[in-house]
């Protein structure tokens, strides 16, 4: 009998441990750039970035202004799929960020020796003697960032919607499992992969003698932090990086200004399909932007671990929280998604009790900007979000 | 009462039984005997519709057995297979009560008449004291009797037994065979059984049918059928056959193999 109770206890303990583990460690493939992000608002860059700027660049564009006159910009105002919101959303054209190379000589006058150093979030450092020239970016987000800095990657992960600047870049397969043969054929000096896949890819790269760096770029703040790190590492392009950062910060400030003085709304972020969905926490890509804009996520104040990006949350808590704004992110055409969600919202009377539904502040977010971090275009996402939240 | 004409049975495209003619009169006890793999059990299965025959026809009371509704056949004919399984917690009485199912409509349950018949079947097989015990807790012979009680509860006119004594010790074997003989005498139950032990077959049957390689080799009363020549041809066994001084029944005693070298030479000896 005692052996039995012991066995039962062991099984129950094991189950609880599993339960805790699944609760805290939610991987976030939601923000994997597996297939999605198009580089819709490509920064303009001179493809061979080097030291002396010969052309005086135009003044940096103000936040909401006419599109840049540079030829290679496609000037995509908003991503093709407009949000079908229940509140009318004024489409705002957002310009391509300008690259402005400062007139001063770019060859840095270093106060410290320039070292190519990249640091991963788990502390692993990658230090190389020379700046790598042939870079493969297994992350469309990163490929876009590098290209904007003036560093054209020699290879990138397969994506259906590459921006046209990257369209000639050879594609080498999925971010989670690239085609090693094609990868090696490109003879890269550096491979940049997503840190989510480090456990499986690190040994593979080691085996094949490839230098690898694992980047964490799921969140808004990650993109900027990475840009800064790339700026320091690729020191010949430091100014490009700085320019990009300044531009983003400027637009960010403008967007945040919209939130100033407004009461902070309660926001619910739904991720998935109407049949099966989860909620994005304040630590997710969209969640972080909502928090930046002053929104209060339903998951705040609950014991959610820092790296948890989506959790299955109880409907009861949603009712008690009574969100004022509901943001819906679902893959698929937004009109159809909106329709389906509407149906679910009408079938289940519970939704109708929420302030957000009653006031019509339910918004379907465009997939390309909000499904996962698209890299530099995230600033467009922030601006769009600011408009949704504070019309 | 039961006739089989030109029966042939295939199993996995192999002809197991061919050209088999067979007739049983009411009230008879007929035993099918023959070497292993000769097709005895197959014939029994065909007669009881457990197996479909490839050609030929089986008549029960003059009607084609395959054209009769299953339930009707189940009320007239009952077969007891070699191996029985039952859930571990069925009592004897519960098991026997299943025998009444063919007589009920699908929505009916046991009525008083059914209960009486169940008790009667238990009585006939002398299981009154064991009626509330689980079937699996009984000994081999008792279990066999319980299944015979189940067959009895069906109130069949014909009882088919597929090697009913194979897994039992001698005491239980006699027990079962005596029961069969008694049921035949008191109820007029027609019995067709497949037996391995020829002495038993001789002692307890009115007629014997000998099958070898799917064909009927001999048929008749034990005295006529069991001859040393037949035993040598069919079983490859040298035997002595005599009438027992005490019982007056036929019995045989095996003296050894008929031919020294095995299969090939023996098969050539077949008449």
């Amino acid at each position: 009998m005692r052996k039995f109770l012991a066995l039962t206890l062991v099984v129950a303990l094991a189950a609880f441990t599993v339960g805790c583990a699944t609760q805290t460690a939610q991987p976030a493939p939601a923000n994997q750039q597996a297939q999605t992000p198009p580089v819709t608002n490509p920064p303009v860059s001179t493809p061979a970035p080097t030291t002396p700027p010969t052309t005086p660049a135009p003044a940096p564009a103000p936040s909401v202004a006419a599109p840049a006159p540079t030829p290679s910009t496609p000037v995509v105002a908003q991503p093709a799929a407009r949000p079908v919101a229940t509140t009318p959303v004024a489409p705002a054209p957002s310009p391509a960020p300008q690259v402005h190379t400062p007139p001063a000589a770019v060859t840095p006058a270093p106060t410290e020796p320039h070292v190519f150093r990249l640091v991963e979030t788990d502390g692993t450092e990658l230090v190389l003697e020379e700046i790598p020239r042939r870079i493969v970016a297994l992350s469309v987000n990163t490929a876009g960032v590098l290209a904007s800095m003036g560093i054209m990657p020699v290879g990138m992960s397969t994506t259906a919607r590459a921006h046209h600047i990257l369209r000639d870049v050879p594609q080498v397969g999925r971010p989670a499992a690239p085609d090693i043969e094609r990868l090696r054929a490109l003879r890269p000096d550096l491979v940049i992969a997503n840190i989510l896949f480090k456990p499986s890819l690190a040994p593979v790269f080691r085996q094949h003698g490839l230098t690898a760096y694992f980047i964490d770029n799921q969140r808004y703040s990650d993109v900027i932090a990475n840009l800064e790190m790339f700026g320091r590492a690729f020191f010949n392009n430091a100014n490009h990086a700085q320019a990009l950062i300044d531009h983003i910060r400027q637009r960010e400030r403008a967007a945040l200004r919209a939130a100033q003085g407004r009461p902070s709304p309660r926001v619910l972020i739904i991720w998935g399909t109407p049949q099966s969905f989860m909620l994005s926490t304040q630590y997710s890509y969209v969640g972080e932007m909502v928090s930046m804009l002053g929104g209060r996520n339903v998951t705040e104040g609950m014991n959610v671990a820092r790296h948890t990006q989506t959790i299955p949350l109880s409907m009861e808590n949603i009712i008690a929280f009574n969100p004022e704004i509901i943001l819906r992110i679902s893959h698929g055409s937004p009109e159809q998604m909106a329709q389906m969600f509407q149906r679910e919202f009408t079938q289940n009377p519970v939704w109708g009790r929420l302030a957000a539904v009653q006031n019509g502040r339910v918004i379907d977010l465009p997939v390309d900007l909000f499904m996962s971090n698209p890299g530099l275009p995230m600033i467009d996402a922030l601006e769009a979000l600011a408009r949704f939240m504070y019309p | 009462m039961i006739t089989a004409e030109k029966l042939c049975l295939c199993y996995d495209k192999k002809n197991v039984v061919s050209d088999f003619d067979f007739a049983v009169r009411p009230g008879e006890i007929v035993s099918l005997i023959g070497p292993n793999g000769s097709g005895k059990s197959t014939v029994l299965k065909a007669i009881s519709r457990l197996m479909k025959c490839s050609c030929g026809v089986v008549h029960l009371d003059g009607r084609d057995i395959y054209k009769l509704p299953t339930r009707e056949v189940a009320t007239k004919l009952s077969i007891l297979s070699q191996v029985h399984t039952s859930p571990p917690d069925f009592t004897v009485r519960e098991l026997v009560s299943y025998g009444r199912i063919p007589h009920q409509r699908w929505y009916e349950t046991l009525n008083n008449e059914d209960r009486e018949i169940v008790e009667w079947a238990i009585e006939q097989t002398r299981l009154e004291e064991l009626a509330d015990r689980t079937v699996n807790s009984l000994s081999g012979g008792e279990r066999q009797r319980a299944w015979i009680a189940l067959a009895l509860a069906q109130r069949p006119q014909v009882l088919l037994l597929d090697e009913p004594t194979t897994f039992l010790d001698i005491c239980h074997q006699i027990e079962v065979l005596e029961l069969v003989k008694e049921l035949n005498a008191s109820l007029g139950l027609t019995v067709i059984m497949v037996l391995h032990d020829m002495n038993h077959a001789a002692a307890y049957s009115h007629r014997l049918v000998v099958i070898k390689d799917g064909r009927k080799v001999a048929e008749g009363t034990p005295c006529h059928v069991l001859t040393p020549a037949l035993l040598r041809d069919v079983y490859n066994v040298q035997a002595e056959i005599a009438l027992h001084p005490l019982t007056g029944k036929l019995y045989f005693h095996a003296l050894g193999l008929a031919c020294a070298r095995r299969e090939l030479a023996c098969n050539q000896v077949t008449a």
Partner: protein
Amino acid sequence: MTARSAVRPLPRDLRAAKKILVLLLALGLLGTVAIASLRFGSLSFATQDILQALLGAEDTLAKVVVLDVRLPRMLLALMVGANLALSGALLQAVMRNPLADPGLTGVSTGAALAGVTIMLALPQFGALVPFAAFVGGAIACALVFALAWKRGIEPIRIILAGVAVNAVFGGGTSLLSILYSDRIQGILMWLNGSIAGRSWYHVRMLAPYTAVGLVVALLCIKAANLLQLGDDAARNLGLNVNLARTALSFVAAFLAGISVSTVGLIGFIGLIVPHVCRLLIGSDYKFMLPLSAILGALLLIVADASARTIFRPVELPVGIIMAVVGGPFFLYLLRKGGSYRV
């Protein structure tokens, strides 16, 4: 001749009465637990608030939560639990194998593949998920039986065909998960079986099919009992064994299919509950089948209440809770041997 054990068996009527008592007790327990489960959830309410919510007319938070969130979930758990348990019990009769589970017929993987295909690749047809899941399950089940049929249905062939079909369909689901790995997060709840987010709409959808399924299942009692005696004995007693096997399997597949299409994949109930019932009340399907339905409902209600309470405010998929609740209890019963010895 043989040594008889000293246990005196109970007379027949007392045994039947005992079984009926067990059934009634189980029913009573079900009612109590069902009502009590309304108390548990992510938010805490005082019992008074709950009673007021049920009886009063005031539109409080408690009322919304209890009537629109917990009550439909409880009813859904009741129906799905009963369906899956019955499905398992019927399949165990067909297979004559205590390890039979509705998953063997391919229903779960077929439904999963259909549902996942829509949710990942064709999300614009999302409203069709329940229907598609049911059809997918039915197709998989039909495929299993078509492969298994060879002059009749034998349990071993059903199992082998089921393994093959499950492998293929499961592979399809895995493939989709990889191709759409960025979207998989959203459908995890469905894949693991979850009653979260279900509402009165789903209750209304499932109720008529459940009612039909339950009635038909009860009609199968006799056939199920006969199958337990073995093929030969069953044929001898007038049962068309092939027809019975096929019919029972389809009833089981139907019950599992409607459940999966509504709440996703919840395993384990069909496997464990009939066993537990057998240990409690014996193998006679006349008593075991109703008890399976009752216990299945009971188990899933408890599991769902736990799923929404244990790690609140996070909701666990109920299938995970099932394993923890059901497993040790089953082990305990096996060890004890069940009270059904007389």
